[in-house]
């Protein structure tokens, strides 16, 4: 580890926090329906959206109607995206003349984008037409992130309100989150990215004659507009197969820093937005600090693992001083590759600027464990905040058990119903991740997709199901996911991870919204100080280490010791 490497990491994280505090304030105002800077320009568009779709913005929904609206939107989104991919050969803006996307791949990709996962079993530049990238993938980058924001705010309203039968209006939240938050930020980030060198054109490819006289066909397209929302919406689905490692997606160190900033800033801002919505800045701050501690710990471990290089290669004469450079770009180096990897899995982004599959065993363990924890530090757009609040509920419950006092969080009594729902949400993940992994390693078709043998092979499969269940989308990309088995099972994992998780969460929102607020008493456990932060981190570590340690021990941990012993597979 070098001081310049650490300085780069520190500068990005400081820039995130500095921007997240005012942004959180702004997001809270947007979702409370208040007037903002963009209201004069955008409110006619907003009103037109409600009018055309027959939505009465003043009419709020109970949690069940809210959930139904979210599900209806997701189903329609799935069907339209599936149709677009299947029919792209017959539609315009297809300069490379790609055929329709095969059914199992289109199934997987549609689920991937409506759930904000953006797992890619396809290679963007050789499968998807510009029309599909724009009308399909870019659109869902916006709306799946806005859906996440909406659901998080439904839960936040559950805490903020008392004896309320409603949690908000899904259509209003969706529209306002897209129009006032995601769209303006994307425009700015896209333009800055173009200035830094990211292409934005409707051409499909450029043919070059290289210095040695060979022909090089360079894929190109409307990259910057998709790149901006890909990071801001913590989506992660790249225009190109190599994602943000591709020089057209991230041409230099500054674009790299901007992309890391963009994928972290809204999730952190949401912690502060939560604080504002419940009228207590300290509550949001405690959550943001907890997220930052988990994130920084991960970055430091990953950076340390990568910075020392691969001992197996050092032994045959490779200079270890730049670190483990297999699967990394020279312009980024190991420090910001480790930061990107930890940030993209700490959020549910899943964009990559280096190939996680080629990380050192412990360097790859961090992104994997981040996703197994449900990407909560700082989490995806929306998904991070509601995931974190579920953990906060569990932490408060544990504290309540220890002192023998009825647990309450922000004045809401946590009772059997909420605890059951919270545990249901938390248990969906290991069921999907470990269940599918176990079945895959027993099937020949599951093992045939592996790119690496030995413990790293298990890591590849475990990573795939962790990434999809968590709606992350990054990959140990050696695994060939574009097979009938993986297209289908990974698709189902994405569905479970999004909807089987969020329905209990919205039920909790409804249940809390209906409850009275109890005044804080001397017996109330304060949820804004260091004691709570410590307890929360403890709960997270105990909960997830217990669930996943055996699987991790057989994958990255045993690989680490095998490597130390000089063993290859």
């Amino acid at each position: 580890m070098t001081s310049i490497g650490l300085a780069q990491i520190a500068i990005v994280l400081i820039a995130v926090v500095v921007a997240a505090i005012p942004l959180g304030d702004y997001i809270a105002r947007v979702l409370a329906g208040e007037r903002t800077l963009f209201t004069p320009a955008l409110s006619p568009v907003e009103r037109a959206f409600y009018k055309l779709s027959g939505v009465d913005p003043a009419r709020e929904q109970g949690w069940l109607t809210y959930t139904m609206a979210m599900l209806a939107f997701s189903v329609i989104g799935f069907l339209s995206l599936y149709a677009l991919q299947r029919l792209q050969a017959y539609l315009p803006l297809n300069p490379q003349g790609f055929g329709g996307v095969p059914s199992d791949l289109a199934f997987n990709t549609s689920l991937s984008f409506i759930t904000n996962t953006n797992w890619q079993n396809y290679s963007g530049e050789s499968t998807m037409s510009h029309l599909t990238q724009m009308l399909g993938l870019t659109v869902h980058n916006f709306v799946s992130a806005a859906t996440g924001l909406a659901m998080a705010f439904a839960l936040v309203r559950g805490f903020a309100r008392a004896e309320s039968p409603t949690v908000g209006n899904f259509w209003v939240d969706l529209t306002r989150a897209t129009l006032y938050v995601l769209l303006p930020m994307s425009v700015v980030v896209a333009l800055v990215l173009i200035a830094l060198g990211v292409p934005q054109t409707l051409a499909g490819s450029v043919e070059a004659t290289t210095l040695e006289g060979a022909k090089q066909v360079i894929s190109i397209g409307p990259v910057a507009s998709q790149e901006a929302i890909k990071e801001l919406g913590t989506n992660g689905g790249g225009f190109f197969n190599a994602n943000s490692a591709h020089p057209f997606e991230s041409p230099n160190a500054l674009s790299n820093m901007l992309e890391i900033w963009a994928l972290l800033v809204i999730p952190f801002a949401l912690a502060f937005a939560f604080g504002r919505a419940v009228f207590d800045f300290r509550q949001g701050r405690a959550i943001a600090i907890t997220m930052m501690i988990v994130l920084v710990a991960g970055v430091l471990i990953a950076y340390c693992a990568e910075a020392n290089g691969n001992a197996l290669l050092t032994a045959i004469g490779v200079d270890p001083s730049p670190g483990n450079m297999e699967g990394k770009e020279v312009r980024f180096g190991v420090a910001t590759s480790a930061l990107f990897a930890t940030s993209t899995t700490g959020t549910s982004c899943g964009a990559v600027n280096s190939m996680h599959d080629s990380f050192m065993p412990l360097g790859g363990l961090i992104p994997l464990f981040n996703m197994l924890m449900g990407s909560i530090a700082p989490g995806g757009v929306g998904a991070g905040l509601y995931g974190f609040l579920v953990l906060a509920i569990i932490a408060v419950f544990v504290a309540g058990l220890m002192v023998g006092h009825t647990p309450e969080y922000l004045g809401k009594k946590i009772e059997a119903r909420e605890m059951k729902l919270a545990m249901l949400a938390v248990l969906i993940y290991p069921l999907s991740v470990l269940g599918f992994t176990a079945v895959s390693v027993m099937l020949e078709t599951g093992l045939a997709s592996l790119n690496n043998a030995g413990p790293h092979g298990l890591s590849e499969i475990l990573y795939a199901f962790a990434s999809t269940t968590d709606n992350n989308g990054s990959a140990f990309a050696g695994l060939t996911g574009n097979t009938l088995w993986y297209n289908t099972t990974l698709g189902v994992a994405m569905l479970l991870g999004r909807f089987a998780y969020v329905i209990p969460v919205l039920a909790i929102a409804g249940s809390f919204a209906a409850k009275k607020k109890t005044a804080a008493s001397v017996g109330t456990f304060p949820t804004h100080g260091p004691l709570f932060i410590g307890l929360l981190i403890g709960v997270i570590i105990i909960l997830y280490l217990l669930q996943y340690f055996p699987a991790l021990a057989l994958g990255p941990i045993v690989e680490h010791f095998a490597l130390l012993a000089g063993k290859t597979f």
Partner: protein
Amino acid sequence: MLSQIRPAIVMIVLFTALTGLVYPLAITGVAQLVMPRQANGSLIEGDGTVIGSTLIGQNFASDRYFHGRPSATTGPDPADPSKTTDAPYNASNSMGSNLGPTSKKLVDRVNAAIEAEFAVGRIDVVAADAVTTSASGLDPHISPQFALAQASAVAKARNLSAAQVRALVEANIEERVLGVFGEPRVNVLLLNMALDRLK
């Protein structure tokens, strides 16, 4: 649920129009107008033809040029289009090797690369980026260490003095942005173009 179908359909259509058409097309329009060089891929042209992009690495195999990093990209096999074959720096199919740290294939590949380079006397120090594949397979850069290591071999192939070529490499080293961001590096294509201009 049924009462939510209409807003669902209309909203998808409206968001598709706004974020799928208006947004990317407006950005494309502004970009093409204000920043056409970047928007079209930072291309380098010479004699009316496109030589390449400053951002995208090219495959260099000749002794007379500096070599880039090994690339893991593949392309369709000309003999059998249903299969793929190695095609370094294929800029329409970016990818990394995805070989794990304990992969025997990785260690064997690196070993073979070291032996091959030493055998022809191209490099004297094994820089990490000289024998590892990049994440995209299109990395336009190499480390100054790797570039300097190749200088004397390139000078020999071109009948130039080693000092002259080393000076050219030094002049082409790009430092960290603002002294902090990124890593020192050399753009291989730009370096080789400068080499061609040397007398």
